[in-house]
């Protein structure tokens, strides 16, 4: 049994007053808070190691321990997503870098196409937009439906035998939509296309099993999973990682660079090391390992079940007020633990709403995100115009939130709705 009040104590910022007020942190879809266990893992590296790790680097005691601990962290990520081998786990700076790596290096011919959706985070769309422009390939967009869900039939229409890769978000950071990824993977594979999924909003909240969904590549955002910033993960089936060219080259990616007849002949390491050029974020890797340990100790099913009941209350509470437009599906079972909304009256700018909850609530600071969440195309599609200053407010939940915080927020939202009448 999980003692959730004990979990909350691992996040000291939530137990301190800020400007004399208690914090209610509803911005975990942007950045999750970090438990003590993650800081301690990183502190161990910076305090007691601080040395080079990785392929072919320092073999003294500190270097060896650094290498062993960072490879152990890679093993933890492997288990966390049920990859077949730790050789399928590439460390990156963040999820965006992983998506760029795939987009920039997947073999793509002019007569081939790439399929993505209007609901992608810009990081899942723009790297492929850019690559298609460079190769002259076609970028095909599957339209999310008005309620933010997808119809697999729309993918069947767009994916054909010339589709090289499908870039698809598993859980939307804007609408919260949990997409039918497995069905889309099946459609793509029937046509010989690869699939890269954006797991930034899914993997921190639900069990991700890459072998079950059979995705070819996926990216994780460690900082949304209680881990440190500046470290991300790219998963790829080994055969496909092998087939990709390098995104960056330099130290740490080679077995040798032969000098012969005034030529250089580099011999590159196999994956994952061929993608990890230069000295790495060793402290971040240890923090990432500690973060997935932390989540697995709680249990991903426990996290998902609790978040789903909280999401239900949050979603229904906002809808009951009947003053706000909610983006995405209205069935909480189809959603991740976040709700994006905006007042039905457009009198108040979305940034003001977030600032109101940050500054104007007695006794509490309720911290949310406003803006367009890096998903502009879908907002234009449903009539929200970022270029005219329109946007939404997003409340997102995680393991340290409580039902009492949701009730405080809903009460404050009701007061806010009255204040702008």
């Amino acid at each position: 049994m999980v003692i959730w009040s004990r979990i909350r104590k691992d996040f000291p910022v939530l137990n301190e007053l800020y400007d004399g007020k208690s914090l209610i942190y509803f911005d975990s879809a942007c950045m999750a808070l970090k438990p003590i266990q993650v800081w301690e893992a990183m502190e161990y590296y910076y305090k007691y190691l601080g040395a080079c790790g990785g392929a072919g680097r320092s073999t003294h005691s500190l270097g060896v321990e650094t290498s062993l601990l960072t490879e152990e962290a890679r093993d933890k990520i492997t288990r966390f997503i049920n990859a077949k081998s730790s050789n399928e786990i590439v460390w990156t700076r963040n999820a965006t870098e992983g998506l760029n790596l795939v987009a920039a290096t997947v073999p793509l011919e002019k007569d081939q196409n790439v399929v993505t959706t209007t609901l992608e985070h810009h990081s899942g769309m723009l790297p492929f937009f850019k690559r298609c422009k460079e190769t002259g390939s076609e970028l095909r967009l599957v339209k999310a439906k008005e309620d933010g869900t997808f119809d697999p039939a729309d993918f069947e229409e767009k994916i054909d035998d010339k589709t090289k890769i499908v870039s698809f978000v598993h859980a939307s950071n804007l609408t919260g939509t949990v997409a039918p990824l497995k069905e889309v993977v099946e459609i793509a594979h029937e046509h010989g296309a690869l699939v890269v999924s954006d797991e930034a909003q899914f993997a921190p909240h639900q069990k991700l099993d890459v072998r079950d969904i059979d995705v070819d590549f996926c990216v994780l955002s460690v900082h949304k999973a209680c881990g440190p910033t500046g470290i991300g993960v790219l998963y790829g089936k080994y055969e496909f990682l092998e087939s990709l060219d390098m995104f960056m080259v330099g130290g740490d990616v080679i077995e040798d660079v032969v000098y012969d007849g005034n030529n250089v002949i580099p011999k590159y390491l196999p994956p994952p090391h061929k993608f990890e050029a230069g000295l790495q974020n060793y402290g971040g890797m240890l923090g990432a390992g500690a973060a997935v340990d932390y989540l697995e100790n709680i249990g991903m099913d426990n996290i998902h079940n609790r978040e789903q009941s909280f999401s239900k209350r949050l979603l229904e509470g906002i809808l009951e007020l009947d003053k706000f437009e909610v983006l995405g599906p209205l069935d909480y079972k189809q959603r991740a633990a976040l709700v994006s909304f905006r007042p039905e009256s457009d009198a108040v700018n979305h940034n003001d709403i977030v600032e109101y909850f940050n500054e104007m609530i007695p006794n509490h600071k309720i911290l949310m995100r406003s803006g367009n969440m890096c998903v502009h195309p879908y907002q234009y599609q449903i009539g929200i115009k970022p270029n005219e200053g329109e946007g939404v407010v997003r409340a997102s939940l995680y393991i340290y939130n409580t039902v009492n915080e949701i009730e405080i927020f809903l009460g404050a939202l009701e007061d806010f709705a009255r204040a702008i009448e």
Partner: protein
Amino acid sequence: MSSFKERNVECILAILKKQNPATTKEIMAMRDLFPELCAGCTSGGDVILAGKELVEQGIVEREWSSTGFVWKLISGHNENA
């Protein structure tokens, strides 16, 4: 060339010199008048950050109203801020 943060501060000041006071929504609507200063403000979060910076410096004051925050250039800063 001004930094990104400085440009946003200059953007708010330029708008408030044209219309003082102004709500956040009105400021957002006037950004197109100063495209070189107000670049990068699409979602408007930068407007709030820059406005708060000016409140901290005592150049602008801010009040809540039923139409959101109203930003006002404090007298004396109007000409030379």
